[in-house]
């Protein structure tokens, strides 16, 4: 799905920045960045993508996404 492609690209971009610091330091920072700046539906989207194989994801991004807290579910009729 095209939407997932965009999320993959964004996650990979974030991973690329932190990559210079080495995997051990990079992974938690990538995870924190996504946790801090992505709204729950974006996090759900990338988690879905990982669940269905995680194609195209940078290994560091993939490792970081596996560390994400599950995003809260929001359904309709909650207003």
């Amino acid at each position: 799905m095209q939407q997932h492609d965009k999320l993959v690209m964004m996650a990979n971009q974030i991973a690329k920045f932190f990559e210079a610091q080495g995997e051990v330091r990079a992974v938690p920072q990538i995870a924190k960045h996504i946790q801090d700046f992505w709204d729950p539906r974006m996090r759900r989207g990338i988690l879905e993508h990982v669940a269905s194989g995680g194609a195209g994801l940078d290994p560091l991004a993939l490792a970081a996404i596996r560390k994400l807290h599950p995003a809260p579910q929001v359904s309709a009729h909650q207003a």
Partner: protein
Amino acid sequence: MTLVTEIDYGTPASKSEKTVTLTIDGVEVTVPEGTSIMRAAMEVGTKIPKLCATDSVEAFGSCRLCLVEIEGRAGTPASCTTPAMNGLVVHTQNSRLKQLRRGVMELYISDHPLDCLTCAANGDCELQDMAGAVGLRDVRYGYDGANHVFAKSKDGAANDAWMPKDETNPYFTYDPSKCIVCNRCVRACEEVQGTFALTIAGRGFESRVSPGMSEDFLDSECVSCGACVQACPTATLSEKSLIDIGQPEHSVVTTCAYCGVGCAFKAEMRGEEVVRMVPYKDGKANRGHSCVKGRFAWGYATHKERILKPMVRDKITDPWRETTWEEAIGRVVSEFKRIQYQFGREAVGGITSSRCTNEETFLVQKLIRAGFGVNNVDTCARVCHSPTGYGLRTAFGTSAGTQDFDSVEDSDVMLVIGANPTDAHPVFASRMKKRLRAGAKLIVVDPRRIDLVRSAHIEASHHLPLLPGTNVAVLTAMAHVIVTEGLVNEKFVRERCELDDFQEWAAFVSEERNSPEAVAKFTGVDPAELRAAARLYATGGNAAIYYGLGVTEHSQGSTTVMAIANLAMVTGNLGRRGVGVNPLRGQNNVQGACDMGSFPHELSGYRHISDDTTRTMFEEFWGAKLNPEPGLRIPNMLDAAVEGTFKGIYIQGEDILQSDPDTRHVSAGLAAMECVVVQDLFLNETANYAHVFLPGSTFLEKDGTFTNAERRIQLVRKVMTPLNGYADWEITQLLAHGFGLDWKYAHPSEIMDEIAALTPTFKNVSFKKIEEMGSVQWPCNDANPEGSPIMHATTFARGKGKFMLTEYVPTDERTGPRFPLLLTTGRILSQYNVGAQTRRTDNVMWHEEDRLEIHPHDAEQRGIKEGDWVRIQSRAGETALRALITDRVAPGVVYTTFHHPMTQANVITTDFSDWATNCPEYKVTAVQVGLSNGPTQYQEDYEAFAQASRRIAAVEAAE
């Protein structure tokens, strides 16, 4: 109410700390050394008659009206050019001086028209005042001799010395017959504005003020800043609005609503009609200067296209229907509630306006968070300086520029990166140029040869014309030079920064692959020039970095901001006057909009929404539960809309369809929404997709505050009743009532009190405080009760400064056989942002269309000639513009502005964005350019669509 008048001391203030004491007319006065006698006299209230002197420019000594006698000295020296000295005994008035002055005035008046009653300056003419002051009663020479006053002599013969009025400038006239050749305009153009457009042609009696080489004002280099008009003591240079309306009867100090410089102006009024906007001398951002936009381009406020009634429609293909506020507000409330019921709470959001006040912005995000119950709020900083927020927060701990504008007066080196201040921040550019003319050195890093690189009496020591998209590589290479050549400020780094991070960073930048020689092959920058620039920055004294959107609007925008912070830290250029890291912010209140919690992940004062202590404080104050999860940013909202999970948006004062990248994606997102609410002055491009239009108010119609690029909070004061009925904050409050929020703000000052109560960096800010101090720079709290002109003086906001590794990652947007050129975008002086305001003023005379700048080589290869229509294609889309052939851009690079909607520049920009903040990569798009016959089908279709969309149904006549 009365006119706000500033004292004219005649000559500029001296900065000397040493004082001298003298006696003037029997009164002892102590002044800083270097003060003129004229200024010293004014300090004790003695106005020595003068014409050629005014305190915005250096003394000139030409009018000979300010003569004084000094005991023990021969003659009658001019008090403007004679410095005060210890023990001088000065007399400003005696029979000899009276006679001399009267003689001088008699000569002036013998060559000046006596049409005072019908003159535009009547009531505000220094020549008239001086004639009165010296007791001129008779002009013995008559008016028949040689003169500049009459077109014909009495016998009907043409008078060759007479020159007709020059009315070519849309905003002011030049009437040479009224000129006394005092040179104030010429000196203001040089010293204050720094354009050198004016000169005096001829000598003696033939001396005339001449724009350029005796050209018309409009055809000359004049940038219409108004400094000359303001300096003119007569009606020679007069605002057309003043000629049209007459002298103002009261004035109110307020803040300009154009760029992030935040100039203070006096709105000079007659009743509720603006006569003119005059820069306010005590404004600490502009120090009495202005540009063509703030000074003259305010006519949009009463433009006939302004929408004054709320409007609604069911479908965007319907014409608009004017309605009541009740119905329009009710529609928004019922639609948003329906959408939230049907698609979930998170299906709505909003955008705060960087053109509105802090108070208005704060209310919009409060409505979204507390009323809609979501954090889907963002602001236009997303597309401009969001990387500044992220980058500077990471390095220093807070998201703002480190200096005040006055700081530039102490800079020895200025490094300007990705900014074009003479066009985008003209009033600050004038202050930069003044300092550069006094000897400071300049380094420009920009793909384009901007005006600062070489203009009148200014020349950059180094211009690094890098290829768009390679900022990080160039700045890291500069750091490489500084570290490997031993130019590190070790004391600063050791005392002020995290050492482990520094050491890792120093090793990283020292790698050979980061050397100027190694990066040259993809940056295009001469390594020797880069090395010289790095050495100058590190060793040239106080070095300040000024940067703009050429830094932030890239895939690596946030990385570049960190690279800038690294450079400042490694050379110790932080924490005092003359240095620092200075983002030049785009819109008038974009700093404020960020400060006020407009970003989806943070509350006011840059505190993350997930922080329980902060969120709880807001929850208690607002009596509402807040969502602890970050919301959607603008591009994410559009993605979610296309995906079908985001259906309603409330947009205050922002035109995302024109200003945001990848227009097709933006329009697809807007078209997918079920309720788009636009609050603006005009039916902007975004309103083409709107279902509810709420007419907004201008900065002249409301009270509030704006925060400029130097964190300076200044008052905006209401000078007229909102033509649309409500100030924008009142409209948001009406909406809030609809969503069940019990807001009772009677005045914006109450909103600021709430902001101060909830935001530690604003703790001591109040309208009263700003009123007393004129303006205040945050942080303003118990630690900094008078505000903070310069930040991080002893420690960083985060404690120790943090060096970040800045690996260069090339953008995915690359040139290739299909798209061999790189398009970058920018602004022009006379227009502002999407042009909604400036296009509705006479500023269009300077820029009636956006053009594509292309290098002669690239043009020749494609058979393109000056003025030809050319098609620009990228992988996102295509548009057509007329070409402008210039070597300001390097071969391989093309450039355009985006002030006109028909340009559709953002049809070609892509959806690539900064890795940290999703700030779009406006500055790099791979394109192909070729000849075309005219606008593209898309442009023509869009024009037709926009026209159809703006239809307003005729109101049915009552029976």
